[in-house]
């Protein structure tokens, strides 16, 4: 059986969905952040697949941009999460409820 581009696209959609579901149901801010990374990397996979299928290098270049942006986002994200964890070591997303109404 030949593995076509569609397989990769389906895999990337599945990975993306896992990321979405994970972000919505997990309560640990760190794990929620990992789910975002999973979503971004699922997108990278689809970029590379499209790039290969279209025989165009643009999609692969886009992946590099995404990687850099994801790294920057992680740096800021971890800093913010660490800042809040220092004050409340056992904080989960449910504890973040000062703001509501």
């Amino acid at each position, binding site marked *: 059986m030949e593995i076509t581009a569609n397989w990769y*696209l389906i895999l990337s959609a599945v990975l*993306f969905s896992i*990321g*979405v579901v994970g*972000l919505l149901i997990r309560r640990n*801010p760190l794990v*929620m*952040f990992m789910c*975002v990374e999973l*979503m*971004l990397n*699922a*997108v990278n996979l*689809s*970029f590379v*697949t*499209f790039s290969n*299928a*279209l025989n*165009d290098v*643009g*999609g692969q*270049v*886009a992946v590099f*941009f*995404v990687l850099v*942006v994801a790294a*920057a*986002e992680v740096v*800021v*994200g971890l*800093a*913010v*999460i660490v*800042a*809040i964890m220092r*004050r*409340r070591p056992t904080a989960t997303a449910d504890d*973040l409820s*000062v*703001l*509501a*109404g």
Partner: protein
Amino acid sequence: MNNLLHLSQSVLAQNEAIPQLPTPEIAWSAFIPLLILAVGGLLLLTFTSLMPAFAKSSWALTGYTVAVAIGTIVACIPLWNRVQRVCEAGEVCQAGAFSTAAGAWGVDGFSIFLTILMAASVALAALVMHDYLETEGLTGPEPYVLLMLSASGGVIMASANDLIVVFIGLEILSIAVYVLAGMHLLRLASQEAAVKYLVLGAFASAFFLYGISMVYGATGSTSLIDIQGFLATNVLTSNGTLLAGIAMLLIGFGFKIAAVPFHAWTPDVYQGAPSPVVAYMASGVKVAGFAGLMRVFLLAFTDYAADDWRPVMLVLAIATMAVGAVLAIVQTDVKRTLAYSSISHAGFIMVGVHAASDVGVSAALFYLAAYTFIVAGSFGVITLVGRKGDNLHALSDYHGLSRRRPMLAVVFTIFLLAQAGVPLTSGFFAKFYVIRAAVEGESYVLAIAAMITAVIGAFLYLRIIVAMFMSDPLDDHGEIDANLSDEEAAAARIELRDKVTAAEGPPIRIPTLAAVSIGLALLVTVAVGFLPGLVSGFANDALPQLVAAGS
């Protein structure tokens, strides 16, 4: 082993055959406003690291930031003149919109207009921030640096002619604002706002990116010029991927502009983030979100407008206006009320975008311009009333403001009336133009929905005005018994007065720079209310255009 050798030989052979890659031609003049903002921010960071003395002078920091913002606006003027110029017959001149960097960067009236708005929101926020940082003990160059860098991301979004560039701009804009939202390390609410904003923002970025990937897969390019050309010349037999991509892009932008149902973060983040930062978030970040939305949807997906994204935009606009206005009414926190009202305003701007016509775009741009100043001024006032600790934002904290700070109460009233769309303020013409665009586009449902929500919205602004002018704080603390003797009544009155003073908290200070910022915003709001032509003329000339590079 043999195979490996063969492979390495072929790689070597390939290396020799690699031709020199041509680099695109870059017209640096097109980047000057962006460079002033971005390099201005980076230089400040470098300077203050090398010369700590400079970092200690908050006046120098604010002055520098405002100077950079003004410099950006000034640098826009020659570009604007060039774009609007029309060559006479036979004359050889540079005129009209153009694009550079292989078509990835577009310069047109639209991008310059929004660049000026971004710079203005930076200046207004920086002026309010000055005193806030002092009282909260947060002095340092970082907030100003982040403000300028974030705005440079917004400028990138306004000029991007490529989806990847839009994405880069979106992230530069957002990441800086995540940090700004959480910059108050001593307030748990500030950090909570940062975490919520960050997680939901990153979530939205991932959707946005998936949308880019799908559009790329369906059209073979991320350049708006190529996408538009491809869709104009080809009919896709199965356009599922493209439509899914467009939907994902709409979700991504929907988060940034806080459109219902992607608005859930807005009230929490606006309430928790430091008030001067909210002034920037409500003006600058919203402008940038709409800049990207309009650029991508009105330029690249014009052929998919009528049947595909406009109906969705119609539903989103109605939901955004209505949910924002209705939920604002039930809030007891003024910051939260204005957060919901900012959601409602996003709905009104979407009415202009939905029209997808020249009238609609210039109406949306006019709305953005008017709204930037109104909301920056409103949150400026909220910062002052919040006082030290940035906590006094309940509606009851505004009781009797007219007695304690009459000028502040009057100014806030004008901003609130402008948000409600009362005539003789810029808010009236903003609403008038978008509704006119909807009527001219024959979207009567949308026009009627906009008018109804404008009425609902007026109620919530009046509620705050009533709190400031008509409720005496003495009433909150019981009444004086009429049967008491004169002496007893006098004593009771003094006691009551003490109670009220204690409940009022510390006196409201009005620092000079914040007053300048609020005064500027007020001036624009009122001046444009009398003479809308001041802005609408520019907005009419600021239509987005796609021009291929080298033409």
